[in-house]
């Protein structure tokens, strides 16, 4: 977890008390760097997410439970503590075997999440594969790709275009679902997508162009927000 408030830094004791109330007494709060903490919780928490106490959690449901725990933690910090923070959550580990690797992964996840997904505050390592890959590409190669792909990079500074495309990709390129999510008429969405096609020469309704636009959007966030 990393705190992002500009002036305040919570004391270890205060934070530990809140987290113990929230998670359980069986947790460990480890300060890593300034405003950065590692929270180790017991795996019993995953079972507690289940509807009934006795229910065993299936392996496939672990990620879902972890996401809800992390989202709940973020919500609790925001609502009850009154601060803004970023939370990354990892899959269960045996600390003596892989703590260092887990910390590195979580830190990287938060960094990637903050870089590529500005509005999001809860990040999962299993959802930033593409971002990790793109982050490793050398700057000149990225810039060349950007230059070759789009003469109109300013398209990605238009909040309406960005929010439209974000929603379009989040809804798996489904026009009707995207329109519903954006509370706009289907025709308005088609008009926006056609406009993008005219101006950037990329039709996001075609699979190949959709991939390129997705990459352009992710790379644009890195290259322009320096």
């Amino acid at each position, binding site marked *: 977890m990393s705190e992002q408030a*500009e*002036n*305040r830094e919570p004391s270890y004791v205060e934070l530990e008390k*809140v987290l113990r*109330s*929230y*998670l359980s007494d069986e947790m460990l709060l480890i300060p890593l760097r300034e405003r950065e903490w590692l929270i180790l919780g017991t795996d019993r*928490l995953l079972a*507690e*997410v*289940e*509807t009934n106490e006795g229910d065993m959690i299936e392996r496939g449901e672990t990620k879902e*439970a972890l996401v*809800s*725990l992390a*989202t*709940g933690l*973020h*919500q*609790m910090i*925001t*609502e*009850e*503590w*009154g*601060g*803004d923070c970023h939370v990354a959550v990892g899959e269960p580990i045996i600390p003596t075997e892989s703590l260092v690797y887990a910390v590195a992964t979580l830190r990287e996840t938060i960094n990637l999440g903050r870089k590529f997904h500005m509005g999001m505050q809860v990040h999962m390592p299993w959802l930033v594969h593409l971002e990790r890959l793109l982050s490793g590409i050398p700057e000149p190669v990225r810039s060349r790709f950007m230059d070759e792909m789009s003469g109109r990079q300013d398209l990605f500074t238009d*909040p*309406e275009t960005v*929010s439209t495309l974000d929603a379009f990709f989040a809804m798996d390129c489904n026009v009707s679902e995207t329109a*519903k999510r954006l*509370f706009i008429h289907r025709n308005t969405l088609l008009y926006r997508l056609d406009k993008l096609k005219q101006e950037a020469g990329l039709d996001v309704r075609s699979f190949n162009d959709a991939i390129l636009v997705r990459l352009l959007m992710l790379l644009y966030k890195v290259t322009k927000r320096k």
Partner: protein
Amino acid sequence: MAGVRLEHVYKKYPGSDKASVTDFNLDIADKEFLVLVGPSGCGKSTTLRMIAGLEEISEGKLYIGDRVVNDVAPKDRDIAMVFQSYALYPHMNVYQNMAFGLKLRKFRKDEIDRRVREAARTLEIEHLLDRKPKALSGGQRQRVALGRAIVREPQVFLMDEPLSNLDAKLRTQMRANISKLMKRLETTCIYVTHDQTEAMTMGDRIVVMKDGFIQQAATPDELYNHPVNLFVAGFIGAPAMNFITGQLTEEGGAVRFKATGINVAIPAGKAQLLRDKGYIGREIIVGIRPEDLHEEPVFIEASPNSVISASIEVSENLGHEMFLYLNGLGKDNVIARVDGRSQLQEGQNVKLAIDMNKIHIFDKDTELNILEA
């Protein structure tokens, strides 16, 4: 209970040359239900987050009650927030979810119990108190999130798009529930949404924002009938107001509005105002609400100076009403909302009369409503 006042509030993010919120001035009365509405990126959530204390105020003053709270920590502002995600604490049951904040604030057990049970009764979730969030539906989860805020008995509720994760049917139901609840609690509420229907149906007053600026702050009725500019006029109302660009001319003492397929007389009162302001001979934009286009013969007969003809490109019959997408009027499609029992069909030519008393006229350059300025 308390009102909220924002005085010349600005939000500027480091490294950005443009303010996200500019010179925001607003007085929100005690017990008022105020809605901030606008498109994505207009600054409404940033404004709410500044009130919550989650964003620092770059410039200006924020009052909750009589107290300036710019430097007061969020947890000490006596506010309660409900967010879009309405994430519950997944490992706690509903009772524990609602009690958690009070427990953290060291309230006595019997007081916590009283507040949780009272809120649960208000929200009709008493039977769910033992359940874990996973066993709840979307609407039930949303009510628990509201409950978590209610038990705090705050001075101000802040809600950031709390209904946007719900399906359309549930959203309509929860909309009414929240309105009723806020009336009963008699607490100031600031509610952010990008859905103008939500804004119109819930707010005592609505603030329309665009690009970080307040465009208009008014009651729903005032916004709908007297929008101050083209943006507000187009944003409020569904289907949106029709805009037709054309020219004002004066013929035989009457001021007329002419555009492709349209040649109608402007009513005397409005005409005089346009004359006085020097708009004769100039291009203007006329705004017509879809329901101000009438196909009833009685209305057409009574309005010989505002009759137009158009072809129906598409018709959408919703049963109680019908939307006609008309061709041949101005540059874009014009939408008319007519009676669902009309026998009008696609491809047909239709005669309609404009209710000229209800039109809006905008300056083409400033986009301000000439009749309201």
